[in-house]
Each structure stands twice: as structure tokens, then as C-alpha cells.
């Protein structure tokens, strides 16, 4: 739910659901009201019909009574009872149907009284007929006619029917308005829901569009990155090739140098002259095998020892003041002497010719090379 668009859509759908619930509740309530209204309309219709039947039952009972008086047969007496039963049923139903209408109560009571009078009249007439008293029957019927019962029933029934018709019209209008309200409620709710759904749809569409745009930008950035990576990879590969070539050349150079050094060493080691490499302080740093061969000293015994411990110049240093070897090295020049002596392991001296060559590194004297050549014994 961190995505605001989802929050908005959920809120919209919640609103749609709320509207749906409200519409459903209102519609159900309206349907219940419409059903109740329809029941009232039906009830009023039933009351109007039943009032018509009641009037008919009054007339039928009157006619049956007069027929019985005239004919005097048993079947007509039964018919008379049936019409009274019908009248009683009609009256019972009318009473029930108009029970809720207080204004109609006096009229219904009057109809009740008239029906009771009709029942009493019928009973009295039947009794008089059975008792063979035709004058009494005639008197009863004349009294009934004079009382105008039938006309009064007609008036009361018509009045009640008129009232019921007015009620029917009012209830029908109410039902119509109820239906209109239901239509309006449902229509408005559905329209509102469509608007909300449209809004939700627009939000989704807008979000999808934004996401597509973001995806396109990301794709473009990825493409650019890939191009850069490809370019950088190509550069690295090129540099790697150059390095590999340089390494190869360097390896070849190193190999050539090693060969050169080995050849130089072979050359130095193969000559029979005694070769000493000196430091600037005239200490021995290297010798060739000819030194060991002539003196009997091993390399490790001579390294770092001063040359003067092994070699004595023939002039004894008399050629000038100070050390002539140090002077030659300082001045960076060769120094030769026709005769010098080198001591062997047993202390014997061997006559040699002496040559010193300064060792230079970038025009700076860092040491020297001494070559002693043995002189043949005469």
C-alpha cells in the first residue's frame, strides 16, 4: 500500500462499494415501501370490490326473502339462508378491510346493524311463513320497505366506495412517487458509480502511461550504459593487447639480457687471467674461477676482503704519494703496472702483471676491475 496510485484506487473502489451499499439499502427500503404501498392499493381495491359484493348480497337476500314469501317452497328457504350467509361473509370481510379506517367505522357499524335487522327480518318472516301467518309477513315486508333499508345500504355503500376510491387514488400516487424515488436513487447511484469507476480507470490508465514512460527512460539509460560498457571493454581489451605486447617485448629483453650476462660471465670465467671486481673502497666483490685456481682461495673466503691483503704492487706504492689505486679510481683512469704479486693459500707469491679499469655507472665511478696476468717464469 506504499504506492499512492494503489491507495487512490483502493479509496475509489471503497467509495464505489459504499455508494453501492447505500443504493442497495435505499433501493431495498424503497422496494419494501413499494410493496407496502402495493398492499394498500390491493387492500383498497379489495374493499371496493367487497363493498360492491355487500350491496349485491343485501339485494340478493332481499330478493330471496320476497321470493320465499311468494313461493313458500323449501328450496327458496335454503336459498334465503345462503344469501344471508353470503351477506354475513361479505360484511365480515368489509369490516376487516375497513378496520384501519376510523372514518369509515360509523358507516360500517350502521351496515352491521342493517345486516342484523335483515337477519332478524328473515328469521321472523320464515317463522311467520312456517306458522301460516301471511298477514304478519306482509306487515314485516311493508315495514322494511317503509324503512328504506335497501336505499340506505346503497347510500352507505356508495359513500364508502367514494371514500375508498379517493384513498385508492392517493395510494396510487404515493406508489408512483415511490417508484420514481427508487428510479432516481438507483439511477443516480449507478451514474455516480460510473463516474467513480471512470475516475479509477483514468487513474489506472495514467499510472500505466507513467510507468511506460519510466520504463522507456530506464531502457534508454540501460542502452547508454551498455554502449559505454562496450566502449570501455574495447578500450580495456586494446590496452590489454598493448600490455601483453609490452610484456612480451620486456620478456624478450630480459631474456636477451640474461643471455648477455651469461655470455659475459662465461667469457670472464673462461679466461685464464685473474679477474677481481672491486668496490670503490677496493674490497673484493667478485672473482673469476682463475683466481681460485691460482690462489687456492674460494670465492666466499675472498669476498669483502681488501684487495691489498691478496695483491702487492711491485712498485710498492712508490710511484707517487698515497694509494695509486685509490687515486686512479678517484680520477677514473686505468692503472697498469708491469709487475705485481699475488699471494696463494700457502703464502707464496706469484708474479703477475697488474691492470686496473674503473667501473662506471652513468659517468660515475662505482668500483673497478683488476686483471692479473701471470708472468711466465724464466
Amino acid at each position, binding site marked *: 500500500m506504499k504506492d499512492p496510485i494503489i491507495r487512490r484506487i483502493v479509496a475509489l473502489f471503497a467509495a464505489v462499494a459504499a455508494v453501492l451499499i447505500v443504493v442497495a439499502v435505499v433501493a431495498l427500503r424503497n422496494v419494501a415501501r413499494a410493496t*407496502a404501498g*402495493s*398492499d*394498500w392499493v*390491493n*387492500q383498497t*381495491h*379489495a374493499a371496493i370490490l367487497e363493498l360492491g359484493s355487500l350491496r349485491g348480497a343485501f339485494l340478493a337476500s332481499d330478493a330471496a326473502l320476497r321470493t320465499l314469501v311468494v313461493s313458500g317452497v323449501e328450496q327458496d328457504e335454503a336459498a334465503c*339462508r*345462503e344469501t344471508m*350467509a353470503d351477506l*354475513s*361473509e361479505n360484511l*365480515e*370481510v368489509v*369490516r*376487516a*378491510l375497513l*378496520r*384501519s379506517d376510523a372514518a369509515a367505522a360509523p358507516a360500517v357499524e350502521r351496515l352491521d346493524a342493517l345486516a342484523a335487522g335483515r337477519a332478524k327480518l328473515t328469521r321472523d318472516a320464515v317463522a311467520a311463513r312456517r306458522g301460516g301467518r301471511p298477514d304478519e309477513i306482509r306487515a314485516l315486508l311493508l315495514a322494511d320497505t317503509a324503512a328504506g333499508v335497501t336505499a340506505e345500504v346503497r347510500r352507505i355503500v356508495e359513500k364508502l366506495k367514494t371514500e375508498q376510491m379517493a384513498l385508492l387514488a392517493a395510494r396510487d400516487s404515493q406508489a408512483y412517487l415511490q417508484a420514481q424515488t427508487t428510479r432516481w436513487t438507483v439511477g443516480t447511484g449507478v451514474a455516480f458509480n460510473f463516474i467513480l469507476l471512470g475516475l479509477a480507470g483514468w487513474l489506472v490508465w495514467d499510472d500505466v502511461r507513467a510507468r511506460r514512460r519510466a520504463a522507456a527512460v530506464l531502457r534508454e539509460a540501460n542502452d547508454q550504459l551498455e554502449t559505454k560498457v562496450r566502449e570501455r571493454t574495447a578500450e580495456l581489451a586494446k590496452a590489454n593487447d598493448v600490455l601483453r605486447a609490452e610484456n612480451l617485448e620486456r620478456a624478450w629483453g630480459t631474456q636477451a639480457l640474461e643471455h648477455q650476462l651469461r655470455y659475459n660471465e662465461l667469457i670472464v670465467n673462461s679466461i685464464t687471467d685473474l679477474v677481481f671486481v672491486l668496490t670503490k673502497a677496493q674490497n673484493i666483490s667478485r672473482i673469476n674461477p682463475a683466481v681460485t685456481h691460482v690462489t687456492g682461495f674460494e670465492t666466499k673466503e675472498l669476498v669483502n676482503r681488501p684487495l691489498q691483503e691478496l695483491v702487492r704492487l711491485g712498485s710498492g706504492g712508490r710511484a707517487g704519494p698515497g694509494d695509486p689505486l685509490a687515486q686512479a679510481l678517484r680520477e677514473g683512469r686505468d692503472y697498469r703496472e708491469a709487475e705485481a704479486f699475488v699471494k696463494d693459500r700457502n703464502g707464496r707469491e706469484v708474479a703477475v702483471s697488474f691492470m686496473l679499469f674503473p667501473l662506471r655507472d652513468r659517468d660515475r665511478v662505482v668500483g673497478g676491475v683488476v686483471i692479473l696476468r701471470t708472468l711466465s717464469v724464466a
Partner: protein
Amino acid sequence: MAILLAPGPASALTLRELLDDKALTPKRFASHFAEFDYEFGADVLPADVFLTRRKGDCDDYAVLAGHVLRHHGQTPRLIHVRMVGRVAHAVCYVTEAKAYLDYNNRKYAINVERSGASLRQIATQVAESFKANWTSVSEFTYTYEEDRKRFGVTVVKTDSPASDPDRNPPSAKAAR
């Protein structure tokens, strides 16, 4: 020979047989009428006429059911339901079974319809079977000897149920 062996028409059910059937229940009673036909009549037919002719209407059926079941110690109530645009329909409610017998259900396996005991509940269920609205419902009595319907309590649909005259209908025990 074949004519002699062929089964003859089933002998008509009689009122006596119904009254003497010790095992008679509302359902068993209704099962006897599965093959009866419908024919409307303004008056209630005498029981034997209805049984012999094997045709009648809801009044004939309900009145006969009430007569027979009362003989068997049940507490039947005759109910008249008035619906919009239709002839009033009669059923026989049997308090012990908490169900009513309806001539329209005589052909079905479920030939007694369970219902609450109040007139409003019965009328609602009956009207539902017609897919119709009822307007009023009455309880009535009838005896073959008197041949006259006597209407008692009437309930109107639009009245508040709380004010129904039969809002406390009699239970089976109380009815006995």
C-alpha cells in the same frame, strides 16, 4: 375371457372408509386425492358426492379434510385466503402437523405444506404458492349438516401484525 379378467374401475373412496382408517394422517389423507380433478363450484359439495365424482374444488377438499381429521382427533382449521384478482382459496390447517392441506398440492409427493399457525403466516405461504399478493384471510367453520360457512377471525394484510386478532394462535394442546 380377457374382458372378464381385466381390472374394473377402482371402487370410489367413501367417507366411511376415511373415517374408519385408524392410521389416517394428513399426508395419508392427501394421498387419496392425487388422481382427483379440479372443478369449481359455488357451493360446498357433500362429502360422498365429492368422493364419488372424484372432482371438486379447494372448498370441497378443505371441508372434507377438516371433517375427517377432526373425527380422528386432530385439530383442523379451515382458512380462506383472499388474493388479488383471484377467487378466494381455502386450505385446511392441521395444528398437530403444523402444516396445511391444499387441493393444489394433492398431486405432489409433498402434499402437506408446513407453515406457522397464524393466519398471516398461512396466507403468506398460500399466496406465495400462487405467486400472488393476499389481501385478507379468514378462519371459518363448516358442517355438512348445516351446510353453511361461518366466518370467524379475519386478518387484513395491511394491518400491523401486532394487532392481528389471532396473534396468539391456539396450540395443539390448548385446542384439545
